[in-house]
């Protein structure tokens, strides 16, 4: 007999992110917990950016998936601890790269306030998801969504998105 919590995980963990459908909301760290309290299910999600317009869609997708599978659950939005790109799984980072988005570095590096001059080392360089080159430059601090910046590869000359550490 599969528990209700496990059934909810099975139903919810595959829900894709509305903006970046190659990764799921679990892989991005948005779907945090599923708990059972006194026979009632509680699904905990956390917002990425404060103003991310996809959050409403994600909550709707979660509710729709629960309803379609006859699961009664309260959907709770929790702010703390604050979402961080460090929660994105390694597997999801590989999927992002294959999708053409350079995955984020560790969030601790985001504390650097100075505008990035050419990367100090290959380890901290934003590498091109198309050709792997570390010889890249930032074109725009913001890109197709609030969570990404726009870069260009100076070797293969392709532009690409970089998922910013948060």
């Amino acid at each position, binding site marked *: 007999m599969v528990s209700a919590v496990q059934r909810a995980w099975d139903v919810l963990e595959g829900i894709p992110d509305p903006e970046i459908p190659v990764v799921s909301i679990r892989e991005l760290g948005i779907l945090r917990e599923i708990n059972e309290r006194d026979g009632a299910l509680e699904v905990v999600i956390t917002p990425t950016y404060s*103003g991310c317009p996809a959050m409403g869609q994600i909550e709707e997708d979660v509710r729709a998936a629960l309803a379609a599978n006859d699961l009664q659950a309260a959907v709770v939005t929790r702010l703390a601890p604050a979402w*961080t790109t460090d929660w994105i799984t390694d597997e999801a980072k590989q999927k992002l790269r294959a999708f053409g988005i350079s995955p984020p570095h560790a969030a601790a590096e985001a504390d650097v*306030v100075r505008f990035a001059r050419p990367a100090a080392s290959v380890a901290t360089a934003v590498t091109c998801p198309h050709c792997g080159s570390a010889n890249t430059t930032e074109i*725009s*601090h913001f*890109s197709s969504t609030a969570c990404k910046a726009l870069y260009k590869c100076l070797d293969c000359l392709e532009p690409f998105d970089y998922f*910013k550490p948060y």
Partner: protein
Amino acid sequence: MDAARQDGPETAPLDYLLHLADNALVLGQRNAEWCGHGPVLEEDIAMANTSLDLIGQARLLYQHAATLSGSGTTEDSLAYFRDAGQFRNYTLMELPHHGPLAGTAAADRDYATTIARNFLYSALMRLVWASLQDSKDAQLAAIAAKSLKETRYHLRHARDWLVRLGDGTAESHSRMQAALDHLMPYTQEFWTVSPAEAAAASSGTGVDTRSVREAWDREVAAALDEATLHRPQPGGYVPRGKEGVHSEHLSYVLAEMQGLARQHPGALW
């Protein structure tokens, strides 16, 4: 309500939450004026995204304030159905994107003014949000931890352009300097203490901004130095927007922002 609150967890004074929320909302609304009109496409997107973050922060704060207020208050009633005198934002947030003009005369938007304001404000809020992570109001602490991440990036963006324009051409330098000369006096309001701020600081839910003044001064001095700009002498009128005493500009911002919600209450689209 008050009796119930005494038994519950510590919460920040309502006016203090509204001060933080109104700053974010009014600046978010101002920055969004660039949407579709940015000087270059990348900056158009940057301002729209910055606004998205600021309005998101404002929503979280209004939701928190609405929960504390009870009696049918919602994030929308706070954003759309309060008048200028009830807004608690710094006067700096509501000024138009151009230099001082007589009365309500208008001019073209000036990106140097936009950058100077975003720099001065995000340099402050990086320090304020960092302190508020330790607020005794747990929900405010959670909002601060998220907002800090976003504010760091806004500061990076604004600081970069401050240096680029300040240390740029003769034209960009003089416009950046003029924007600073215009806006810097308004930052005097950062360092006065309103009754709401005093109450928040003494209850451990808020921060006394005077405690971050030195760090702010250092950040500003280093950036201005790199940008080859000089810091205008402080002085003149000390604004009191956070106590509800605003410039004539806020009403125009609110008229545009609130018009639809007031004309069609409860409208959905």
